[in-house]
């Protein structure tokens, strides 16, 4: 069997495995997920100063839609100062609020990451490092001054000053500052667990570390920048959306600017304030204002899942993934094989076999051995434990598994009870003149064909008579719920490919049981790379997890490569995401987060554009009913006065931004259904809802405004 390094590392992952729900919303993933910050009044107020700073035109220009509102608000302010009226003051004030609500949503989103960033920063405050000098002596220097390839020494109680690789020693490390997991992890030189992260704490022993990050470029630095939203660049999809929004804005500029001469022809020229109000209502302010918040919140959701992405682009790509490469061990199955059944030989009582199997596994501390004892106890065999046996029997010896005998068991009162691989035990029995019954042979073949591992149990009694008692069926146990998960993924159009070092027969059996679409048996890291290339050649987008250095090329080639935090620096560098929990099943959640990000954008765009219909029905009759009374027919909302109608539309337009901030931050709920189902549902909610909601909202605002003297 060619065993890839990933398989060994996923054993570690299996220990931390928790049965997270697939594609679940962030809050539901119970695997040390940080709870998203609640949107409280306090957090809104805290975001206000930043929101005001963001009003600077230099920053606003990045969002052409909101920049247009800013210019409009400024224009209205000038007009109002020149010729003030209750109406113009109200409109101008609400236009400014519209801009402010936009920047506020972004500031709130950024603020949510800030607390996290502060605690991360605190973990680095005043960290000192013991730098090893070329002459072998050490010197204490500030941790932030460390350069690439510096060698530092850390002992129990020290905070590791920067990212690095252990070149000497072994230590238990508390990584709770970055993972939130309080249980310490073992880090040692050589192999795939040699990397350490700055800001984590050594709990025991002493390690020598070679620094692998330049100052300011460490993992924690990158994490701080990420959660603060400081490194945000527009993703391709955001750019495409902006293009659409800008083009709609230009069309609406043409609409409002041409309306002045058109209406003058009818002697109904609207005032500039009204034209600006119309323009602001029509351009897609809702989505324009919320795009940054949606993007930041998407990254934030990922961080809450303890996943660190190198760019927003990677998060978006995750939503497009069509092929998932999943390691079998630790992801699809539990890390180890387990006993699932006992098959006695024809002449042996079932209970005798089970008892013999239990007894010879009592001293076997391997997971397989323990699983045999567990299964025997499940079947009602709760005989004496090891200590009792030892006390009771005359001669007692534990025969541990060894590479030469390839069997383990007990010597007890002159009996030898053994279990081991079928061929070894058969040979052992034959030595004593016994033979393996045909039905046992048959069973062995059958179990192998199913992908299981058959173990034979044999007993040599006091008289030296050898007897094969029967077979233990060891199998890879697929984690519960995997079949349903893969079915869900299939419904979403994602193919799953299981990667395993097992032989093809075993792999096929497990693939069938887990319900994956395809599998790769006897896989080497090179094979993984080949599968990725092949899938990509067919136009598919591939995601995979890995942690070993030899996984690095495949991680780099994959469209979404998720490195385990326990992995080597090479793997982490090659990947575009790092999972701090080192949980390979996280991939499924990452895909869900990517999709949620796009869905939220699409839903709010649709909502924003659909809103315009109602705004037209509010503003157009308000503008022209005086000149053409027949157009009063279009006032289907029955708004009280023209100025109240226009003001109501402006107020609705501003308030809807605030109303949708929680949705933008939380994200539209993602369901694992087919594209058509998702589309029809979201069209119904955000398209039809977007058509209807403003009719109700504007009418209600109008009812309130009409009570205010001077405006209504």
């Amino acid at each position, binding site marked *: 069997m060619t065993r890839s390094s990933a398989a060994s590392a996923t054993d570690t992952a299996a220990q931390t495995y928790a049965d997270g729900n697939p594609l679940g919303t962030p809050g539901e993933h119970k695997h040390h997920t940080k709870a998203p910050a609640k949107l409280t009044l306090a957090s809104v107020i805290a975001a206000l100063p930043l929101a005001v700073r963001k009003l600077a035109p230099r920053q606003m220009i990045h969002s052409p839609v909101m920049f247009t509102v800013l210019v409009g608000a400024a224009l209205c302010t000038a007009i109002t100062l020149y010729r003030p009226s209750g109406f113009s003051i109200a409109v101008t004030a609400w236009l400014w609020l519209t801009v402010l609500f936009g920047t506020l949503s972004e500031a709130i989103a950024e603020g949510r990451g800030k607390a996290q960033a502060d605690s991360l920063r605190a973990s680095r405050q005043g960290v000192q490092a013991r730098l090893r000098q070329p002459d072998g002596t050490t010197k204490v220097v500030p941790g932030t001054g460390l350069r690439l390839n510096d060698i530092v020494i850390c002992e129990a109680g020290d905070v590791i000053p920067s990212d690095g690789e252990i070149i000497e020693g072994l230590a238990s490390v508390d990584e709770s500052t970055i993972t939130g997991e309080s249980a310490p992890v073992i880090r040692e030189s050589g192999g795939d667990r040699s990397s350490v992260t700055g800001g984590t704490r050594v709990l025991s022993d002493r390690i020598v570390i070679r620094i692998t990050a330049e100052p300011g470029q460490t993992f924690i630095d990158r994490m701080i920048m990420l959660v603060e939203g400081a490194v945000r660049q527009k993703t391709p999809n955001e750019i495409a959306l902006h293009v659409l929004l800008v083009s709609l804005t230009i*069309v609406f500029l043409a609409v409002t600017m*041409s309306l002045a001469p058109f209406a003058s022809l009818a002697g109904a020229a609207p005032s500039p304030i009204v034209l600006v109000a119309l323009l602001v209502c029509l351009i897609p302010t809702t989505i324009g204002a919320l795009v940054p918040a949606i993007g930041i919140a998407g990254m934030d959701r990922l961080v809450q899942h303890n996943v660190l992405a190198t760019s927003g682009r990677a998060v978006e790509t995750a939503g497009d993934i*069509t092929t998932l490469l999943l390691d079998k061990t630790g992801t699809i199955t539990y890390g180890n094989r387990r006993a699932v059944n006992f098959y006695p030989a024809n002449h042996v009582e079932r209970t005798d076999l089970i008892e013999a199997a239990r007894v010879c596994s009592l001293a076997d501390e391997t997971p397989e051995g323990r699983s045999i004892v567990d299964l025997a106890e499940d079947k009602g065999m709760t005989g004496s434990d090891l200590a009792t046996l030892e006390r009771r029997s005359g001669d007692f010896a534990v025969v541990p598994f060894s590479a030469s005998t390839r069997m383990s068991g007990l010597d007890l009162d002159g009996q030898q009870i053994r279990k081991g691989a079928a061929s070894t035990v058969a040979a052992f029995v034959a030595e004593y003149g016994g033979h393996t019954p045909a039905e046992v042979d048959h069973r062995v073949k059958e179990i192998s064909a199913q992908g299981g591992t058959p173990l034979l149990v044999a007993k040599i009694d006091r008289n030296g008579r050898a007897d094969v008692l029967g077979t233990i069926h060891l199998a890879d146990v697929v984690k519960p719920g995997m079949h349903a998960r893969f079915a869900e993924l299939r419904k979403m159009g994602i193919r799953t490919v299981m990667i395993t070092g097992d032989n093809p027969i075993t792999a096929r059996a497990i693939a069938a049981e887990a319900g994956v679409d395809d599998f790769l048996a006897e896989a080497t890291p090179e094979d993984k790379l080949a599968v990725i290339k092949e899938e990509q050649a067919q136009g598919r987008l591939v995601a995979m997890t890995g942690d070993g250095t030899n996984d690095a090329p495949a991680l780099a080639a994959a469209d979404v490569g998720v490195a385990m935090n326990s992995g080597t620096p090479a793997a982490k560098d090659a990947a575009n995401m790092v999972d701090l929990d080192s949980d390979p099943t996280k991939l499924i959640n990452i895909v869900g987060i990517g999709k949620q990000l796009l869905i939220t*954008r699409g839903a709010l765009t649709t909502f924003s554009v659909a809103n315009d219909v109602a705004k037209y029905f509010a503003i157009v009759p308000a503008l022209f009913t005086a000149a053409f009374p*027949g157009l009063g027919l279009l006032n289907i909302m029955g708004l009280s006065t023209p100025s109240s109608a226009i003001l109501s539309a402006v107020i609705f337009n501003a308030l809807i931004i605030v109303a949708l901030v929680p949705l933008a931050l939380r994200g539209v709920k993602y369901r694992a259904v087919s594209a058509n189902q998702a589309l*029809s549902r979201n069209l119904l909610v955000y398209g039809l809802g977007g058509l209807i909601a403003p009719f109700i909202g504007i009418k209600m605002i109008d009812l309130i405004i009409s009570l205010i003297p001077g405006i209504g």
Partner: protein
Amino acid sequence: MTFNIASFLVQVAALAVVLAALHKPLGVYLVRVFEGKMSSRPERLFYRLAGIDAGTEQTWSVYLRSVLAFSVVSILLVFVLQRLQGILPGSGSLPGVDPWIAMNTAISFVTNTNWQTYAPETTIGIFVQMTLLAVQNFLSAAVGIVVVVTLIRGIARTRTQRLGNFWVDLARTSFRILLPIAFVASLLMVLGGVVQNFWPADVVNHAAGISQTIPGGPVASQEAIKELGTNGGGYFNANSAHPFENPNPFISLFEVFLLLLIPSALPYAFGRIVGDQKQGYTVAAVMGTLWLASVSLMGWAVASGQGTATAAAGGLGEGFEQRFGPVQGAIFAASTTLTSTGAVNTAHDSLPPLAGGVAMVNMMLGEVAPGGTGSGLYGMLILSIISVFIAGLMVGRTPEYLGKKIGPTEMKLAAMYILVTPVLVLALAGITVMLPDIITNAPATGPHQFSEVLYAFTSGANNNGSAFGGITTSSPYLSVMMSLAMLLGRFLPVALVLALAGSLARQGKIPASAGTVPTHGPLFGGLLVGVTVILTALSYFPALALGPLAEGLLK
């Protein structure tokens, strides 16, 4: 005249049935023409004479340069020869055409608009009609078709820069599609009573001794391509309301059939070439739905028309040709504005205000149901891309259309496309209404006066060519403005479409999965209808409110 609903329904149903029956065989034939390897003899002759290597395919930019070069040369040729009419044979005693009119006409015919600022009877003779205008009827229609074929190739092909050869596509479309169908249609028209002769003007002495000028000419041969190529430029000033162009209700219905024929078969060809017939059916169904809705709306608006013009004339009658009546008037008016034809058998100016509004809305939709030859389908494909962008986001995938990613580049091109015509229409109409000279010279007043201006620029920028009349557009100012609308309204979208074709062809194909938004079926079709209607409504609602709505809802 009354509006006979039974007659209306029968005629609409007849059109729908015949077009539905023909769209597949014609679509299959179109694919054979575009995808075929062989060249016919006249094509080979053309390639040899023009020095074209029919074997090489062009990149999108070379293709675009070819389209533009061909169009510029065509405009210059049509302009110069109109100016030289006085010394050309077969023009009777007609002098050279006024330069402003000649420029407008040249641009109008090359852009497939066929807006006519001139009265043909008194302005141009047989020579210009036959050798310039009729030829442009073929070529401008062919250009529209080859552009959409290039876009379809861009969608269907992968990882290539090669999108076909403009000259080969042009020759094949002209020789194998337009000429044969137009030839047969002309014969049928002659049988139906459309004139086809070489009498520039025949003086007849009546028994009463009164002499009368009877215009004649090669009308049937031009009439067929006028409709088939969604051109719309009439041989006579009265266009398809003239008895020599459109002698009876059967020919009138036949003309509607002809102008819908190629645009309604192109979706089938599209489905074939991209290898997914359901795509073609969905586009065809969307076009058919919009056409049916618009024709019904037009029928309703005409039947219940109570506008100023009809009220003044004492009922539904003014502006309708007696031989066709309001039913055929409505079907023709809706179909001619939903395609880029612009031929009329009714004076649109006299339509009831809301019916006139429907005609405008039809053009404002971007003429996509089924639209002009080629231009209708490429307009619809752009709208599909906008729709799939929204839809893709809403299911959580980077949007893709038929396996091609809709990224920033594609979105830029598609978004600019949907921006061009509304901005042109609104800006040019906005400037025009500010000019007192133009407005005070217009006979109509109130919202109708504004409708006339709005209609003119909507027609020009969408390359329709039908008119409300009223304002005189032969003045230098309006001639230039209209020319600008027609030129930019034609070639900016063509350039964007070809660039899009290039950008799509460069991509590899992403296989569809359950997570991909299907771009076929009722759900996507419904979304496409919704996006088309809402984009139009958002761009034009205030203008429409001040024009046809204000007039139609006048209390």
